């Protein structure tokens, strides 16, 4: 974890209200692993008390990227970043996805939850590991990739404008209703809570291992404020004694196995 002044390489809208910023941040880039995030000061005189956490969406050479939606003041300022802007970020923060041995990855991203999923997919792609990627959105204009089922890339939209009509669960069902030899599926997902809870249920029904990257309010991002607590399903052995009943999303997470935690 370092506090780095990154410089903005590019920052533009990649789909309707979805933005991507590429940042030159050599230190963080060197250390980062999929699933980790950075904590951003949106502008120099940022009047609020908390930085804005954003998952790392890609990491190449010295550049990391974030994919974000403009939802409030912080993300509004982030979308104003210009090429060459200097921005104050802390990272990499948090844990990473589990080691994959021979498990078959189904990656699912809902909305901007796609960010930490894309970084993981990059890893699988570069290592030539076969996997499925499901991306969910409300409508077609929010997608920035092509629906290509043959390559394992399934898009869903609530309104059916692109890909499968319905939620990502419909895409999951499609995969599981297609005859296949694969038995050791493992889901890695990130997105809005209702989606993750539905996936958690699905995984439990089908007895599939399932990991999710969670979002909570975070004041510090590195285990000090204890604000980002996540209620566990059963007490944890790991971590300090005060992290048995609750885990901290910023250091014990953001990635959790769904059966560890009460709710997504």
């Amino acid at each position: 974890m370092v506090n780095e002044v990154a410089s903005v390489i590019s920052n533009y809208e990649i789909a309707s209200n979805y933005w991507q910023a590429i940042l030159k941040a050599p230190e963080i880039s060197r250390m980062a692993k999929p699933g980790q995030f950075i904590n951003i000061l949106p502008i120099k005189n940022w009047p609020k008390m908390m930085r804005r956490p954003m998952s790392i969406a890609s990491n190449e050479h010295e550049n990391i990227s974030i994919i974000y939606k403009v939802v409030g003041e912080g993300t509004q300022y982030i979308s104003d970043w210009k090429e060459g802007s200097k921005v104050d970020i802390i990272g990499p923060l948090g844990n990473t996805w589990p080691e994959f041995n021979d498990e078959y990855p189904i990656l699912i991203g809902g909305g901007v939850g796609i960010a930490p999923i894309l970084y993981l997919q990059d890893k699988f792609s570069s290592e030539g590991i076969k996997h499925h990627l499901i991306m969910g959105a409300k409508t077609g204009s929010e997608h920035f990739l092509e629906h290509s089922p043959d390559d394992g890339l399934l898009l869903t939209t609530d309104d059916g404008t692109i890909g499968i009509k319905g939620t990502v669960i419909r895409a999951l069902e499609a995969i599981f209703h297609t005859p296949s030899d694969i038995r050791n599926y493992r889901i890695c997902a990130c997105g809005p809570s209702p989606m993750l809870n539905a996936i958690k249920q699905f995984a439990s029904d089908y007895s599939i291992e399932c990991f999710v990257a969670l979002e909570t309010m975070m004041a510090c991002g590195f285990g000090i404020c204890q604000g980002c607590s996540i209620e566990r399903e059963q007490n944890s052995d790991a971590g300090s004694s005060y992290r048995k009943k609750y885990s901290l999303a910023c250091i014990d997470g953001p990635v959790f196995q769904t059966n560890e935690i009460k709710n997504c």
Partner: protein
Amino acid sequence: MLTKIELLNHTFKSPILVASGTFGYGDEVAGLIDVNQLGGIITKSVTLEPREGNAPPRIAETSAGMLNSIGLANLGVEKYCHTKLPQLNKLETKVIINIAGFGIDDYVKTLQILENHDGNHAGYEINISCPNVKSGGMQFGVDAVMTESLTSEMRKHTNKLLILKLSPNVTKIEDIAMAAEAGGADMISAINTVVGMGINIHNRKPVLNTVFGGLSGPAIKPIALANVHKIYKAVSVPIIGIGGISTAEDVIEFIMAGADLVQVGTSNFKDPSIGLKITKGLEPLCKTLEVTNIHDLKGTLEYY
């Protein structure tokens, strides 16, 4: 050494300490800053028994501040002594151990256990703003008589610095400060968080699981400063000013109002190296203000 402070036989490298609950035990930030350059660190409140803390949500943002109800999550004094104390002993800055409790016994037992371990810590900061089960949910920090009893009881068990940390949620903080002084406190620190609340109008629930929580950050700085100045006029022990500090100018305000030292809390979250940045900013300010030591500014506020 414009910013070195000599106080009660202790030397503080600078008047800037970091506040309890906002800097962990000093080890978590290792990658970000050199803790040893701070004037000191107040560790997260420790209690007699380990505590899991409150259910989420525990924090929320407010205008120029934040609300929290962490619920004193901590590993309990026994484990603290075994896992944290040895690390803290290695620090080359002043360590002050913050203790919380729910009754006088609690506090005293916690203190005794700490005293029975080898610790290099300079002293204790006693957090008397926790809900007190015995008096029906009211807090120690709002009752002068209880504050004096607690202080004098603890005084019997330690020769290290005994610092009472006061709550601003009272009609007259001076009364509590005088009680702490009468009980034998070496110093007063103020303020802890201000009671606040927020509502998520969409799910119609409070933003904190516990409904009420503690407001901190620059929003409360004027409140903190007023309390410090009132305490300064009421007692003669040294004072540690806390509340919304984020700049070197803020520190000077607290010192002019009567503080000897200050603590930086919430601002650490936004900028973990804020303590050191402020320290750097103090030197030129002392020069502008034409003092040879920052301590010369203590209580130099002039009325109109």
